[in-house]
């Protein structure tokens, strides 16, 4: 008897849990499938949230978000499912551009509007693209670093996950635009922190122990890892002059720049990107245009213009 | 005359650590006959058959097939020599189909070395039709009843077209109708000139089919004669033998109140309407053959298995539910026949094992008083005469006798009033056995109630004040010490009502 009650109780609990996590979708005129790279990746999640929010402004568009779970297999099958479900438009944020290319082509072949974004998949006939350029995002940082990093400084590099398109492009930009041109700068640490703050912290702690003179430059492929490295040297007088660069323009980076602890970040503006995505989708759906390739800018924010970055986040409710 | 003997076993001996299982056994099986092997539990029947089937190697002696000495390496070799065996324990894969099981390990292959399923099912179907079995070759084994599976085992063995077929208690799990079918099959096999070696202790069966009978006792061959020269009583007398009874330290302890009273205790399909009681100072025995339900009754009483009827009174108080914890709290404990599985935590120390059942005795305000625990365990081990290099030694390192003493020491820590002892001396050397007997008497003297389940009849006769005999899940007889007779117990145990 007691046992049965226990069983029912736990079943009910599980049911309740799963129900609360489900939301009901209402059908509108145009159905758009947004296939995100990974909902567990904070920028991708930010973008997906932005897309959902932006869709609210279009009374004739409804967006369903799917989670590719940072897995090519999963993402590809989600695209196939979306084709089968006859969505009017499918927006793909690839996990790995080349892996999703044939599936994006399938979307076009099925007569469905296809948009690739962040990062775009180039050269698919009939598909549109909306993107920020990952190379350029890091390049603006590197070009600034070229001017401000003193002669003979030491540097550390915090990499994103191995094989990740954005991570690779950003690293390429740092190499080409900065390290190749500044042989005087010695790299004392270079490792994968996989976009993660805690992994970056552990690496930085070991590096700080290892070096004889303070590290002069933190070249991080995203803001999250940069914040982790800065967390380690917080309040350390030797590190007053450290220069640090990140990408994404997160709220945390905004705060760090305001405090004077971080040098610069390039905004990958998810709001701007989602606005552009939705307007592009709308134009294509209503037949105003048939093919669009467009980019958001890559604005660099430093102590001088950080107020503008703050405004973006305040508007979005991420900061007060 | 020489060619008339198909199989001859000469002077076979086999020892296991601590036990001499077979001691110079010899017998002959004539071509085209049924040869019955009988004896008590542990007489060595199964061991002997496993040697003939190549599962065990004999320490000495030889096996002659058609007058030629052979060395049988393994069951596959035995099969190639035309020897096939039906096991007491069923050897099937429950998730596989009937056909796959019949062909287990010798599946027909097609030319791509794939299992030829069509052929396999076709052959099985044919076999089933020939033997008049009704179920589908595609059925999964787990969906069949035990008797169906037993019949399948028999058919599987017969399907190899063997020259010698060994059946180890084949009727223990099948219905009367199937027994008839089995006997028909045996007759047919005999007509084909094959030999059947049939192990059983069911007297009525034995005399229906036996041509020759060989009786084993304690690993020795007592007699081997044509069935026509024997009758039931004589066979039982041969099985039981005459035994010395003064190697047991039994004494007449004054009896007190009834400490354990069991009424109409039942568990569907396992045992039925069990009634017995034990008084303070009394040692009561449960006799019976393998599978009679003795262990099952004891396990259910202790709360390890479910039961579905009857009343149990411990020290006069009726138990509402039988749970292990409740029983221990009420002073009823059980020594399992399988002490490694249910009695000990082999990888932990003697200390932890002994204090396991009564840890709360050493807990003060949530903290374990390790000094006190150690002293108590050391004292208990000394009293039990546990031989171990230290209390930290893991129990798996001890000998069987010492392991059993550790289990006993554990229960002594609880200071129980009723002890259910299932095969307390199994796998233990003679010296340790005697120590355990002495301990039992000491406990009885202290006014404890003891139940002893044993497959060794002499032990029961030597140690008990009273014996209940079980057969097929029922108590079929009760004997007081004055009435003790091995023959009588055997009759009850076999179920031939000769009271």
């Amino acid at each position, binding site marked *: 008897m007691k046992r049965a009650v226990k069983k029912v109780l*736990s079943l009910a609990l599980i049911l309740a849990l799963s129900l609360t996590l489900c939301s009901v979708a209402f059908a509108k005129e145009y159905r758009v499938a947004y296939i995100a790279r990974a909902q567990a990746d904070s920028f991708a999640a930010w973008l997906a949230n932005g897309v959902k929010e932006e869709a609210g402004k279009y009374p004739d568009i409804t967006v369903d978000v799917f989670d590719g779970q940072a897995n090519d297999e999963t993402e590809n099958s989600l695209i196939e499912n979306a084709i089968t479900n006859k969505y009017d438009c499918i927006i793909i944020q690839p996990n790995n551009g080349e892996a999703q290319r044939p599936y994006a082509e399938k979307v076009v072949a099925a007569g469905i509007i296809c948009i690739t974004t962040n990062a775009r998949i180039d050269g698919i006939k009939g598909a549109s693209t909306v993107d920020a350029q990952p190379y350029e995002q890091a390049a603006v940082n590197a070009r600034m670093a070229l001017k401000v990093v003193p002669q003979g400084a030491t540097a550390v590099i915090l990499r994103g996950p191995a094989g990740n398109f954005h991570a690779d492009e950003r690293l390429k930009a740092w190499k080409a635009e900065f390290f190749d041109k500044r042989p005087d700068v010695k790299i004392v640490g270079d490792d994968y922190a996989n976009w993660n703050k805690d992994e970056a912290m552990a690496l930085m702690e070991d590096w700080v122990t290892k070096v004889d003179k303070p590290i002069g430059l933190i070249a991080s492929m995203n803001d999250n890892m940069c914040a982790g490295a800065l967390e380690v040297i917080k309040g350390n007088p030797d590190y007053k002059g450290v220069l640090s660069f990140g990408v994404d323009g997160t709220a945390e980076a905004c705060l760090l720049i305001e405090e004077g602890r971080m040098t610069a970040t390039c905004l990958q503006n998810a709001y701007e990107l989602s606005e552009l995505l939705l307007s592009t989708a709308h134009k294509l759906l209503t037949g105003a245009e048939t093919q669009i390739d467009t980019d958001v800018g890559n604005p660099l924010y430093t102590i001088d213009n950080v107020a503008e970055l703050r405004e973006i986040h305040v508007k979005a409710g991420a900061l007060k | 005359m020489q060619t008339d003997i198909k199989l001859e076993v000469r002077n076979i001996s086999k020892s296991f650590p601590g036990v001499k299982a077979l001691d110079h056994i010899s017998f002959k099986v004539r071509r085209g006959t049924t040869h019955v092997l009988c004896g008590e539990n542990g007489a060595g029947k199964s061991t002997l058959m496993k040697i003939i089937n190549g599962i065990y190697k004999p320490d000495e002696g030889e096996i002659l097939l058609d007058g030629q000495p052979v060395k049988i390496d393994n069951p596959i070799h035995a099969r190639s020599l035309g020897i096939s065996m039906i096991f007491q324990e069923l050897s099937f894969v429950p998730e596989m189909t009937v056909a796959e099981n019949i062909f287990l390990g010798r599946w027909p292959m097609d030319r791509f070395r794939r299992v030829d399923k069509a052929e396999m099912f076709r052959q099985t179907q044919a076999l089933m039709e020939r033997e008049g079995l009704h179920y589908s070759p595609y059925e999964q084994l787990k969906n069949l009843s035990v008797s169906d599976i037993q019949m399948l085992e028999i058919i599987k063995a017969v399907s190899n077209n063997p020259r010698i077929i060994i059946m180890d208690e084949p009727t223990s799990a099948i219905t009367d109708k199937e027994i008839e079918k089995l006997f028909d099959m045996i007759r047919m096999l005999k007509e084909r000139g094959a030999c059947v070696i049939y192990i059983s202790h069911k007297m009525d069966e034995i005399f229906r089919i036996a041509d020759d009978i060989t009786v084993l006792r304690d690993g020795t061959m007592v007699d081997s004669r044509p069935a026509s020269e024997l009758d039931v009583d004589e066979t039982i007398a041969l099985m039981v033998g005459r035994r010395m009874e003064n190697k047991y330290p039994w004494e007449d302890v004054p009896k007190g109140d009834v400490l354990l009273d069991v009424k109409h205790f039942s568990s569907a399909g396992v045992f039925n309407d069990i009634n017995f009681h034990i008084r303070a100072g009394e040692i009561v025995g449960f006799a019976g053959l393998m599978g009679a339900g003795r262990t099952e009754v004891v396990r259910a009483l202790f709360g390890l298995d479910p039961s579905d009827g009857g009343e149990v009174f411990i020290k006069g108080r009726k138990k509402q539910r039988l749970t292990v914890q409740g029983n221990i709290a009420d002073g009823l404990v059980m020594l399992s026949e399988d002490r490694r599985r249910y009695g000990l*935590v082999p990888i932990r120390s003697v200390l932890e094992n002994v204090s*396991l059942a009564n*840890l709360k005795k050493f807990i003060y305000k949530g*903290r374990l008083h390790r000094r006190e625990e150690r002293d108590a365990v050391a004292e208990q081990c000394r009293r039990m005469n546990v031989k171990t*290099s230290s209390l930290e030694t893991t129990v798996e390192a001890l000998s069987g006798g010492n392991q059993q003493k550790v289990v006993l020491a554990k229960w002594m820590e609880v200071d129980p009033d009723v002890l259910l002892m299932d095969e307390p001396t199994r796998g233990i050397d003679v010296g340790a056995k005697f120590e355990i007997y002495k301990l039992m008497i000491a406990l009885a003297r202290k006014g404890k109630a003891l139940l002893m389940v044993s497959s060794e009849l002499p032990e029961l006769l030597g140690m008990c004040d009273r014996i209940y005999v079980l057969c097929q899940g029922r108590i079929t007889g009760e004997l007081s010490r004055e009435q003790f007779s091995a023959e009588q117990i055997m009759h009850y145990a076999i179920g031939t009502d000769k009271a």
Partner: protein
Amino acid sequence: MQLGQGRANLWETLKSKYAIFLVLVVLFIICSLLNSNFLTWRNLTNISRQISVTTILAFGETILIISGLLDLSSGAVMAFSGTLSVMCYKAMGDTYVSMIVAILVAIAIAVFCNALNALMVTTFRAPAFIVTLAMQAMARGAALFLTAGQNVYQIGNYTVLGQGSIWIIPIPILFMIFFFLITRYILSDTRLGRSLYAIGGNEAAANASGIAVNKVKTMAYLVNGVMVGMAAVLFMSRVNAGLPNGAIGYETEALTTAIIGGTSFTGGIGTAGGTIVGAFIIGFLNNIMNLTSVNSYIQQIIKGAIIALAVMYDIYAKNQRTRKKMGNIEDKAKK
């Protein structure tokens, strides 16, 4: 003669019982020789701080593995309870009271998740592996859902626990020591501890000895929950943010730590001391490889090899033990 034998026995026990400790000492010496920065107060506190969170998780896993269970959900539950705790703290403002409430929230959530684990394992007799794997997915999903996948920033003085020090000892290390003492106490000085070993060593026998198996298993999960909750607070506080994506793979790290520390995956064997030694072995290895700039792919290979070696050694030692014991019996029989 007698004395000599005694000494040999002492060495034997040292070797078999404290082998893993010897490995640590040797590793420590090698690391000190390899890099001059290794043997500095700062580096050693760094290592201790780095391992503190996973080690606290590993204590929970040790308790579970000993009783034949495990928890694959600890990393995800950390993220879930940690982000909730951070959000709670932010909502209540920068005060001591909200700090205490935030800690209690983290612990309560983690204990709740583990209570569900326990319920499934005991009532439904589901394997712990699959139950906690399901919990991993649910907790991670809940954390992401709660935060919409975004990190929670500006958490004020919440960082004190993870980043502050008392005298010269970082607070996470103090918590690690605290949980070490708790685990040790539970395992060696309580009825619960003995019951855990008995259940892991032989569940049927434990049951037949009157141990309330389900109750003990539930307790093991609840204790684990407290540790996961506290680890979550320390983690979030250390990274100065509520990370719904944080602590991915921490459960594997924690399991590895316990196993290297001599906890037997088949249950019934393991100690708190072994686990903390295992944690330092991993900590030293990671640290020295970073200090000497070993390629991070190579680092993974080395770490994998060490885990394989540790497990093989565990099995080898166990076989060795039984073989030796059987030898003893024969010796005795001869006498």
